[in-house]
């Protein structure tokens, strides 16, 4: 496994090439059992590209499949994105159902198989979920697939009934011909429809015709199975002969195994094998409990020569040293230094953000079975199928098409399950391969414990922001200077070429390098710090810190200018109507400008605002807080306005914004991963404290009515939540909070 790093790098590099700029097309194919299957591919080009929906050009020969109409009239949508709670299986199924004129009760969802040729995320060029891209990138192809399937069913009915197709109507899953009085469900026509040619073009509905898209009464497809214990997660997969593995990883990042004494572990009844591997020491046992006990009995000596031995306090001090020097330039507009020099007032601030774990409720795990053809079959909450297939193929010395992935429900991710190196799925197949080499081939379930998860790295990076702005005598911003120091989780991966340009990692500067506020002189630069501590995108990526620094700082500038926090922002957003729209809506719904109801005697209350765009979705938060007599803060209520274009599933959108708001606030209150002498101080939910009931504010979500192309909502609820709370605390007379989490200031 000496070439593992090369395998991992090459795998990601191969798959991040932007999707070719082909013209769009439809392709249908007959499926087994008389089912109609239909699919469409509409490449959207490189990330962030936004071509207008179109349906032109020649069909592609690939059997791309999104929709199955079964003889029993059930309609199954093959969902190429991982549903890790964000409701995308429901959202994408809604899109198909709308164009198909189906009844919601007949709709089903199923995770698509791993195949980047058929199921690429057009924003990535490979199959994968992330960046709140799913609805945006599937919008065209799924509407077309639904409309094409509808047209083929209508044609089949027209042939059967010997009536003109133009006289046939479809509503709520029933095909009807008024003149002849004939009508019927989809199922009986599925087989005949499958034999018909795919229409060269289809007419898509106008927004005014929608009855399912935008319908708040539709239930999630998983609303029953996840309330009775029947929904299957990777953790629940049980294959015949399956064994469980846990892996002892180095306590210090960058350390390797020097020697292992595994006698005591092997003596435990039920421990089947102990494997010393480049990734750590794996204990394989007949069940999870025994594997964990076996790992506890290991005596491992680690080689710390290349390991991180600093603590996070020292790392932050090193960041501050770096921040004294100019960094790689992300944005340089005008002459910022001169503008600030000539300003009437100069405001400076420094913000620090800790490492944070994702800690999804379902700890990382996967099941893999090595197959007879030299490949492997996975069961996993797989988020980056395109990378995972290539990495596993590299490890096994085969080709990606020999790696089958059965994607199952994932118990949360928040970014954690998508890695540029396939991470836990690579570990699983490495262990399965090593076990097979010992003559003990078996399906392997690798389970991470919560401690593995909290201590295991891939954190939201430690970040430092230094800001300086100049105001003129009227309080107008004349110059804005911002320096960011952080690690890059793109550096050294296959994504580096896309994400890092001239020393700037755009995943660390997003949200400020493109500052929405109109300032005449803007300078944003960054330093990429180095550490063996592994880092990763974490729900809303760079916006987790850039939005906080930007929105806390602008609030301070508004106060220094003696202006209202909402009015000040609106004045700087003339070129951003959608940001203005959500800001006004949230302020209006929250009663901004009207006095807050007083709290009990001895308490102080305040209201704060933040507005931010991320992933092409626009969100404003207004938070209301109470500072209690003992100085502790309670977040009472958050009013949120969101503009995500056409609201495909308002109920799901609201849930994501509620959850994203809780996520943002929960971590800001009291979460940090800290290191002492290179060792992570936290281990489980007692020391890395999740948001709990008592912390959760009331959340009120308002969706802007829009006809724009829909954009994602999994992440955009996060960025503004914490700064809105911080600004509310300041408005209530509390301290401005520069160092996260807030518990550092003793107010939580």
């Amino acid at each position, binding site marked *: 496994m000496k070439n593992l790093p090369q395998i991992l790098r090459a795998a990601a590099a191969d798959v991040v090439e932007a999707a070719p700029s082909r013209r769009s097309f439809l392709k249908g194919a007959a499926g087994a059992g008389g089912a109609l299957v239909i699919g469409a591919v509409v490449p959207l080009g490189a990330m962030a590209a936004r071509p207008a929906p179109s349906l032109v050009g020649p069909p592609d020969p690939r059997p791309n499949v999104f929709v199955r109409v079964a003889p029993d009239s059930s309609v199954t949508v093959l969902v190429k994105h991982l549903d890790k709670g964000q409701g995308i299986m429901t959202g994408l199924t809604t899109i198909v159902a709308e164009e198909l004129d189906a009844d919601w009760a007949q709709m089903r969802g199923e995770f698509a198989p791993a195949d980047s040729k058929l199921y690429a995320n057009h924003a990535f060029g490979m199959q994968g979920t992330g960046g709140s891209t799913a609805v945006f990138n599937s919008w065209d192809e799924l509407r077309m697939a639904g409309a094409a399937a509808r047209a083929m069913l209508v044609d089949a009915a027209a042939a059967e009934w010997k009536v003109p197709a133009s006289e046939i109507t479809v509503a709520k899953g029933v095909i009807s011909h008024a003149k002849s009085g004939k009508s019927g469900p989809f199922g009986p026509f599925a087989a005949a429809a499958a034999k018909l040619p795919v229409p060269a073009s289809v007419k898509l509905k106008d927004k005014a015709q929608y009855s399912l898209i935008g319908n708040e009464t539709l239930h999630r497809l998983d609303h029953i199975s996840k309330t009775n214990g029947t929904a299957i997660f990777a953790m629940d997969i049980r294959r015949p002969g399956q064994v469980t593995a846990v892996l002892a990883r180095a306590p210090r990042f960058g350390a390797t195994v020097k020697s292992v004494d595994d006698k005591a572990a092997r003596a435990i009844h039920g421990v089947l094998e102990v494997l010393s591997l480049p990734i750590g020491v794996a204990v394989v046992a007949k069940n999870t409990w025994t594997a964990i006990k076996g790992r506890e009995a290991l005596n491992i000596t680690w080689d710390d020569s290349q390991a991180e031995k600093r603590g996070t306090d020292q790392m932050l001090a090193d960041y501050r040293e770096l921040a004294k020097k100019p960094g790689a330039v992300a944005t340089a507009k005008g002459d910022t230094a001169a503008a600030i020099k000539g300003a009437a007032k100069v405001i400076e601030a420094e913000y620090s953000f800790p490492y944070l774990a994702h800690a999804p*409720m379902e700890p990382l795990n996967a099941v893999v079975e090595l197959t007879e053809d030299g490949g492997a079959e996975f069961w996993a909450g797989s988020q980056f199928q395109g990378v995972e297939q290539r990495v596993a193929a590299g490890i096994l010395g085969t080709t990606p098409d020999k790696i089958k992935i059965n994607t199952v429900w994932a118990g949360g991710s928040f970014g954690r399950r998508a890695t540029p190196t396939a991470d836990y799925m690579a570990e699983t197949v490495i262990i399965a391969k090593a076990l097979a080499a010992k003559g003990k081939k078996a399906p392997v379930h690798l389970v991470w414990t919560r401690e593995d998860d909290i201590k295991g790295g891939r954190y939201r990076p430690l970040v430092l922001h230094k800001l300086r702005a100049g105001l003129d005598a009227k309080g107008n911003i004349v110059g804005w200077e911002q320096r960011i120091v952080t690690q890059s989780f793109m550096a050294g991966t296959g994504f580096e070429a896309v994400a890092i340009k001239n020393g700037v990692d755009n995943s660390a500067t997003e949200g400020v390098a493109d500052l929405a506020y109109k300032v005449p002189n803007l300078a944003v630069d960054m330093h990429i710090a180095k550490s063996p501590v592994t880092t990763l995108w974490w729900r809303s990526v760079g916006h987790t810190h850039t939005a906080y620094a930007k929105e806390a700082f602008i609030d301070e500038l508004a106060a220094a200018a003696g202006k209202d926090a909402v009015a000040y922002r609106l004045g700087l957003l003339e070129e951003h109507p959608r940001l203005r729209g959500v800001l006004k809506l949230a302020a209006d719904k929250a009663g901004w400008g009207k006095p807050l109801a007083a709290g009990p005697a001895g308490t102080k209350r305040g209201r704060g605002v933040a507005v931010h765009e991320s992933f092409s979705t626009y969100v404003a938060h207004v938070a209301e807080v109470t500072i209690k007599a003992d100085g502790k803060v309670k977040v009472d209520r958050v009013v949120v306005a969101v503009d995500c274009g056409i609201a495909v599933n308002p109920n799901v959108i609201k849930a994501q914004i509620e959850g994203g708001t809780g996520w943002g606030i929960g971590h800001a209150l009291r979460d940090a991963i800290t290191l002492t002498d290179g060792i992570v101080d936290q281990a489980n939910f007692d020391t890395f404290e999740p948001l709990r009931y008592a912390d959760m504010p009331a959340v009120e979500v308002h969706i802007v009515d829009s006809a724009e192309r829909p954009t994602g909502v999994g992440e955009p609820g996060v960025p503004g939540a914490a700064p809105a709370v911080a600004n509310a605390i300041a408005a209530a007379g509390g301290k401005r909070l520069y160092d996260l989490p807030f518990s550092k200031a003793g107010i939580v």
Partner: protein
Amino acid sequence: MIRLNINGQVRDVDVPADMPLLWVLRDELNMTGTKFGCGQALCGACTVHVDGVPTRSCQLPASAAADAKITTIEGIQGKAAQAVQKAWADLDVVQCGYCQSGQIMAATALIAENPNPSDADIEAAMDGNVCRCATYVRIKAAVKQAATLART
């Protein structure tokens, strides 16, 4: 051999006495509705009822449950449970869903004991059940809706 009474059925399992009930359910009996979240009784994902009391199965040695009536998400029944599951579905509480078995076990026990829980009662009874998706707003609403449903 340990004899357990799970969802009204007697199950004999050949496991070490200290193996937590969680792993007996999941790995020995293939009852995977009860979830592993933290292993330290800090998140509530593994909540089952032991003689009607919500209990963290990850910290309960199987041998200690030998004389008790154990109920899991797979076997939960009765007016309170049905009301809770209906309210959860009606309000689309779930997101990732991984914690929800435990949330439902906790909520059912709460309603069985307190037919009209306030926000503070819900917070007190369910504070040990973590939801990383932060579905707390909807859970609170669902518990109240379920309580109303169970009373009528």
